[in-house]
């Protein structure tokens, strides 16, 4: 595999007067309590991970867990107190101001929870803003912005002011603005948290559609575990600045690493999250006639499988049988004891 797009090594962010000195003295063993007694607050505690090209990493955590702080370290809106961050192999913390601005103008886009649109500019001017900042000519930037308007489905409203739009529409503008410079890396900071549940679902689907088309490298922040499961390639669950577990959605649901993570997975409807592949057996004997793809979500094929008496064959994309699944397993997964692993 090629070099990861984002790479973090032991990143710390500690707020407070003499945070740096304290971090040095602690030798990498940061205890939030002792820091707090000395007037420092630990935002991010020893975060190490990689995000590869085209991957979507969702960082999930409750408020105050440090997820937004982590994102701001990686976009360098705040400077990390310790550790190393590499963007496509470039050491982010060593960049000077000019290079940092260059990086943001060409490689990064960011969407914000409260939309953060400029109230004095119209939809199309807002979207063209990063281009104009970069120095693109006005007509070019506007025509490019119009493409973006169409991409997020706001045609006909390009000359509205943000205050004349609904929350969902405003966030579409935010998304379009962050994509205007065609960045490789896309940061989204709780982009749908301020929206109503129905609009939120609509926007999530829209977002998945966009990502399928654009294949960006994404860091997505959310406090909604269901949203994380729905969107993520991998999920990082944070608590008190520490990444508790970083894994695929299925693995997190099936094998929660800590008690904290397990609490989140308890209420999750597994049939909606897990794929056939996640629960299939490797045995290939005693198969019936029915075949299901390994990439199906359980919910979609459960009814078919439950009507069978024999085990059902699981096939991969090339139609090879790679395992089997029996109806009992489905019942066990959906209704079975949640506390024990299946």
């Amino acid at each position: 595999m090629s070099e990861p797009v984002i790479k973090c090594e032991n990143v710390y962010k500690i707020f407070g007067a003499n945070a740096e000195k304290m971090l040095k003295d602690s030798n990498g063993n940061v205890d939030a309590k002792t820091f707090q007694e000395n007037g420092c607050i630990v935002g991010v505690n020893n975060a190490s991970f990689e995000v590869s090209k085209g991957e979507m990493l969702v960082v999930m955590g409750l408020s105050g867990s440090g997820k937004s702080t982590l994102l701001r370290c990686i976009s360098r809106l705040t400077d990390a107190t310790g550790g190393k961050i590499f963007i496509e192999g470039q050491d982010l913390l060593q960049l000077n101001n000019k290079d940092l601005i260059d990086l943001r103008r060409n490689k990064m886009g960011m969407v914000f929870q409260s939309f953060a649109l400029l109230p004095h500019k119209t939809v199309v001017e807002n979207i063209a803003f990063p281009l104009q900042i970069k120095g693109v000519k006005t007509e070019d930037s506007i025509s490019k912005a119009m493409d973006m308007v169409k991409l997020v489905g706001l045609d006909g409203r390009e000359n509205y002011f943000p205050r004349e739009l609904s929350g969902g529409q405003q966030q579409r503008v935010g998304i379009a603005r962050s994509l205007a410079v065609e960045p490789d890396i896309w940061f989204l900071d709780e982009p749908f948290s301020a929206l109503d549940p129905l609009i939120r679902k609509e926007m999530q689907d829209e977002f998945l559609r966009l990502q399928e088309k654009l294949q960006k490298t994404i860091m997505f922040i959310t406090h909604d575990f269901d949203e994380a499961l729905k969107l993520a390639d991998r999920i990082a669950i944070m608590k008190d600045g520490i990444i508790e577990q970083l894994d695929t959605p299925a693995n997190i649901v099936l094998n929660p690493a800590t008690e904290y993570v397990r609490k989140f997975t308890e209420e999750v409807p597994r049939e909606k999250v897990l794929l056939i592949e996640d629960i299939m057996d490797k045995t290939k004997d005693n198969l019936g006639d029915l075949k299901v793809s390994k990439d199906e979500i359980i919910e979609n094929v459960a009814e078919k499988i439950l009507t069978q008496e024999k085990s059902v064959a699981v096939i991969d994309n090339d139609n090879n049988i790679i395992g089997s699944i029996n109806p009992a397993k489905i019942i066990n997964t959906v209704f079975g004891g949640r506390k024990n692993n299946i």
Partner: protein
Amino acid sequence: MEFFKKYPKTFQWLFLLVVFFALCFAIEVPETYKFIRGQAEFVKDPNQSSYVFLGKEVRYYAFDVFWRLPPLLGWLPIWINDSLFFLMNEWMPIEVWNEDTQEYKSRPLVLQISRNITAFMTFLIQLIREVLLGGLETIVAFTSWDWIDKNPWAELPGLPWTIVAAGAALLSYKLSGKGLALFAGLTMVYISIFGQWKPSMQTLSFILVAAPLSFIFGLGLGIAAFKSKRVEKALYPILLVMQTMPQYAVLVPALVLFGVGDHAAVIITMVVAVPPMILLTILGLRAVPPEVIEAGRMSGCNNFQLMFKVLIPTARRDILIGVNQVIMVCFSMAVISAFIGAKGLGFNLLLALNQLNIGLALEAGLCISLIAILLDKMSLAWANKQEDYFGNLTFFERNKNLLFFAATVVIGLILAYIGTFLFKDTFNYLFEIPHNKGISTADFWNKGVDWIFETFFVYIKAFNTWLIQEVLQPMRALYLRMPAIATIVLVVGAGYLIGGIRSALVVCGLTLFIALSPWWDRALVTTYMATFGVIVSCTIGFTVGTLCFQNKHSANFMLGVCDIFQTFPSFVYLIPVMMLFGITDTSVLIAVIVYATIPATRYTIEGLRSVPAGLHDAATMSGVNKFQRLTKIEFPLAFPHMMLGINQTIVFALFMVIIGAFIGTEDLGQYILKALSDKKGAGIGLTLGICVAFIALIFDNLIRAYVQKRKKHLGID
């Protein structure tokens, strides 16, 4: 004992009061003490004591230290004066080329700088004045008098009043709508018909120079303070003092530095108008949501782009509210600057008041008030205006207002031309109505005033006498009876109980400054007048505010009235009271009360309004009646905000008391007025101004500390 444990604060306050009164009774009034008029005038008198500090001799009447502190700061005004004199006349002479005599001349640096600034300001004011009224001097500035003599046609003609009136109406229409346009048009027509055109335009030109300059400086300093904590920390105390310093007092040093006239007035207006602009700029920039700033950064803005393309446009409204403030301060300064010779409406008003021609004063005052309301409404409309999108407009629709204006210019010019035939022998009334050649209602008002005096003189006089003899004199005597040490103990103790040791120290410093200045007695008189005004104002304000709050429409109406009254320059309030009560302390106090009631009323209504609707509903569901709701829910919650209203009331009252010196009071204000006509008055005027500002700041500090604590306690912010 139980009681004390339960209410420790009450006990502490009681203890403080006991100590205060004990001190008051323990310290006798010295036999030689009487409220001596000439106390701070450094007359040689064998009975006086004296000391020498920094080479300055200070003479004063010595009393027991507990009774009155010696004026250890007495050298300060003299020293300021001498330093200013030294700066202006001796420090760093430089060689300057003199055009007229064709030779180099030696001149001190500061004097030269002030001359250059003065010349620049004079040029700007002249330019705008001549655009509005016509004249020669701008063209002369670029050429010479000789050239003008040879080319008699070269003269700025000035705009006919019809064009200015139509322009004002069109601008109002664009900013707000028909209502304001109508008001603007009528105001301009009124001004013109009643012969106040020339002074009005003079005042306007003054504002057109002072306001933009103040805006630029204020914005710049505001940005600097926003970006650097250090700059903010350095600016903050200056801003505080400037906001509470009577505008009067600032005039005095300006006299010394820049002389008499419009230019000095513009410069000093900027000194007064810049602080609110700075504060509102900082406030506006702070209020920009952090995510918007981050969005700007992530769009790749550098610092400059972030400031001018993201922060300032987002903070547009707050910054434009700052512009509104700047314009209003400029306007009120334009009136007061008449004292240092600025031309315009203020000058006419001052003249009329000096001649006791109430009718003329009333006319000028009405003009001032109308223009103030107009400027206020226009700048507010600008701040609140939001751009709308109207699809693809045609050329005509997009430039509608410009085209209309061009049309009015043409029509105005034609009218003015026709006027030259119509009014061949008199003035061209369609071009410009000269000062005092319009319709005048002065006689009518003068007769009215005479009638009021003849009819009600007995009652007014009786009221006057009663108020002065039964209320004011005893109160004043009580204030003067306080030994200095007792006052300091009371104020510092209150500071400690309300805001802790920090507050106590700040308050102690401020009080000591006044106590050690030569004007402690005068400051007491000022405080007594302000106290009387504040008590009456707050009583009226709270009552009216509470009553009006009961009904939504009356509350809105009252806020509107407050808005309008607040736009009037404070000086205007003196006209009607002089009309009714003549030249007495009562007049001043009534002006103080009227002026200071505005914030008391406004903050009461606003405070009551800020009580959350949910609480309102919860109280109603608990079955309270209207009165219970008011006393148990609304008052306690609105109280912190109402306290801020008292704070404003105090500042307003102090301003008015000082300006009241014009009518003749015996307090600090009178000395400031005196300093205005004194060559060596700069130091005295400045120190006096600082004294007044410090009185306001003592109360400000106490009230703010209390409000902060209370708000924290109630969990509202």
